[in-house]
């Protein structure tokens, strides 16, 4: 028990006071202690992006991030994008544009897209591709994912009145 460290994590706007061993990754704590299983255990070495979450607005691989280092950060997972049962635009675009097949890579892509569009609301096709290289998809061949991201950017622009 002596190895447990008290930390406070702010996840999707909620405060969680936890006692965690320092060797727990953020991914493990999210999935196993907080019950947010949207971020996935896949390659666990930073190659596939299925575990991506936003830390202070930036997409990181939570499998390579210690939970104890997430103290005082704002963490957002895929579950935190939906508001009161309503999907956000990126989620809607992914659903409507056929970007989802087996869905295992989807939370990671959606999180990365959130980060991208926050930083660059009107990305070119090349900018989209380069922003998504940390994410593998074996099912879709990526085309409909690009189209979903472009759709989301376009819809968000319209909603801003742009």
């Amino acid at each position: 028990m002596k190895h447990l460290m008290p930390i406070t994590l702010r996840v999707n706007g909620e405060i969680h006071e936890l006692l965690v061993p320092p060797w727990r990754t953020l991914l493990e704590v999210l999935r196993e202690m907080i019950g947010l299983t949207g971020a996935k255990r896949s390659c666990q070495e930073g190659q596939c992006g299925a575990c991506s979450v936003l830390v202070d607005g930036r997409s990181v691989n939570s499998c390579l991030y210690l939970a104890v280092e997430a103290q005082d950060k704002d963490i957002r997972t895929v579950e935190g994008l939906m508001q009161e049962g309503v999907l956000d635009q990126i989620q809607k675009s992914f659903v409507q544009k056929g970007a989802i097949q087996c869905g295992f890579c989807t939370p990671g892509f959606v999180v990365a897209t959130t980060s991208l569009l926050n930083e660059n609301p009107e990305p070119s096709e090349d900018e989209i591709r380069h922003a998504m290289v940390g994410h593998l998809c074996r099912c879709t061949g990526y085309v409909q994912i690009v189209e979903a991201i472009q759709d989301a950017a376009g819809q968000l622009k319209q909603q801003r009145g742009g």
Partner: protein
Amino acid sequence: MNSPVRNTFDVVGQPTPKKDGIPKACGQAEYADDLSMPGMLHGKLLRCPHAHARIVRIDTTRAKALPGVRAVITGADFPGVRYGNLPQTRDYLPLALDVVRYIGEEVAAVAAVDEDTAEEALDLIDVEYEPLPAVFDPDEAMKPGAPLVHDKVANNISAKTAFEFGKVDEAFTRADYVREDVYETQPVKQGMLEPHACIGLWDATGKVSLWSCKMSPYVVWRQLAMGLGLELRNVRVVQTVVGGGFSGGKQEAMPMDFCAVMLSKKTGRPVKIVHTMDEVLTIGHMRHPMKIWLRTATDKSGRILAQHCKMVANGGAYSSIGGFSMYLAGAMLNIPYRIPNLRYEAYRVYTNNGFCGALRGHTNTQICFARDSQLELIAVDLGIDPIDIRHRNALQPGDVTANGFRIGTFAFDECIDRVVQLSGWREKRGRLPKYRGIGFGCGSHISGARLMGHSASAAEIRIQEDGTVHLTTGSTDVGQGADTVLSMIAAEVLGVSVDDVRYIRVDSDSTPVDPGTFGSRVTFFTGNAVKRAAEDARRQLAMIAAERLGANPDDLVFRNREIVNRHDDRQRISLKEAVRWGAFQTGRLIISHGTYAAGDEKIDFRTGHGNLSPAYNPSACAVEVEVDPDTGQVKIVGFWGADDSGFPINPMGVKGQVIGATVMSFGHALFETLIRIDGKVMNPSFRDYKMPLMTDIPRLANFRHDNVITFEPEGPFGAKEAGQGAGTGVIAALANAIYDATGARLNCLPMSPDRILFALRQKEESAGAPSEVAAE
């Protein structure tokens, strides 16, 4: 009940988002690793470090003594019954008993309070091995005196297939032209993002339950029963949301599944086991690496007179579905071109490597690579346009192939022409700058297969009083979109929206038994069963509505959630009202079923003769590449494909499937290979087992796929398969494009940059003559 044939549809044919997209986009879809049960323990598997060894002794004392460990098991904890995919070659055990045959094979398992403890416990299991001589190369393995991977299997021949149709020798003798080439393909992994995961439970009544990401839950059900020595009634397999499969371990019972349930028996708790990705990439389940000798005879117009193909596949340590794989490769030589005379011999060889089985496209992909690569060179030698030579040899609807495939719809010529048009082939070919090239490739696939054993599908429908249609089948959605397609079929027949249909995941306790998801069978076989079930439900409802309305049931049309008399539209009732009235007033519930078995035909797998599938799909594609002569790197700058998948029930789903298959083939062609040295996998990681990323595909404007729409009468609403045929022509197209760009011919996969650079160098040195890199 007769209903008029409609040419326009309300549901099928419309691009429809996947039914389970919303939970997936919100992180709420429940994959096996997301599940948790009270009191659940965590399991880990111990894997052997030797390519071939006798297990002398396993001592689990220290592991069992580690605090937090609740059980440790070995092969001796199982009944010792072997199971497998084909009745003649059952050589799998849940855990190795006396011998281990490849690095990574499972020898023990632990259940503990958490994964950390389970991992530590593995270190404390003492296994004494006596290493045995091992063999890794199939040619070496077939030689007399080679170490035997399985006792009593002479020369390590796992499977041998030979068939002959027509008069092959005669055809070669009278041919104007004969060409022979050798091709080599590499071990390729499924590469799905979700590693295998399961939860096993052995409950107090002696019933075993397994929750897992299985593509063919009933195959697992039977294998579990066999391997555990249980009756089927005491085994339950529940399919969780599948995070990609592409065949392999998700198609069958794996050691993890057996161990999870046995550990549960020992501990009285549910046990979860999840593979790490390096485990996934180390174990068996991959595409057969093959050496393919292909000898082809043509007349001077390039018409194929005969082919002789000899193939040696490195099957790895166990049989898997290998016997069928060997048959299939030869069978697929018969499509999409007319081959009037064919001789095929295949050997699947045991080696001390991870075992091989099916993987998207099965052995068809390798064969298409060889065949369409060679066709290009035949065209060059004979001075024939590469498009013309394909047209000249194309199978036509109504043909019967030498091995007995009866070709129904098969718009191959149209697919070829569509690709020529889409890609700008005529403007580009021969006119591109140096190191830029365009190549053509064709392939084809089946729409499900008539296999030995259980091939049929069934569907059940219950319509609830609110008009919801509950649809159950035994087929799994693994991301390919079966849930949506099958729901669309039911919705179309019943005149409701696809959102009104609830597609229930497979649970062997409550869904109809089914072969599973493989061989592109679901849309066709299960789709037909669903259509029949829906038609029966409609018939039942029509009777009820007819009574209620005082109409003739044959006059009733189902549309927009209503049942209307086509002769008098004042006579109408909502579908849900009809259901309620039927149930409440007359005690009739709407429960229906349908089955589909593609007829009584049987394939003679010994001679290779028989009509394997009720329908066949041709595909064609062109790829444009830019090769960097300083590095050998290939950039894919354009891709244009066209397939005849019959009538696309869900065009959005078809697009995702064909592009997915295409990009997978990009990977197989250029980047992917499992590197094994003395049986050890050197690159069991996504860092070094390189699958295509978003930056590896062409720009969207140059990445096009078209459906050539036909109407296959045997398919539901005219549909055929989509998603496996599409990838089969891609690899040859890339090889042909690289050849067009550089003059270098690569016959060995993957066509990696170093090989291309080497081939370019050789070409320069031999001053102008095209070089061929036949082997490593």
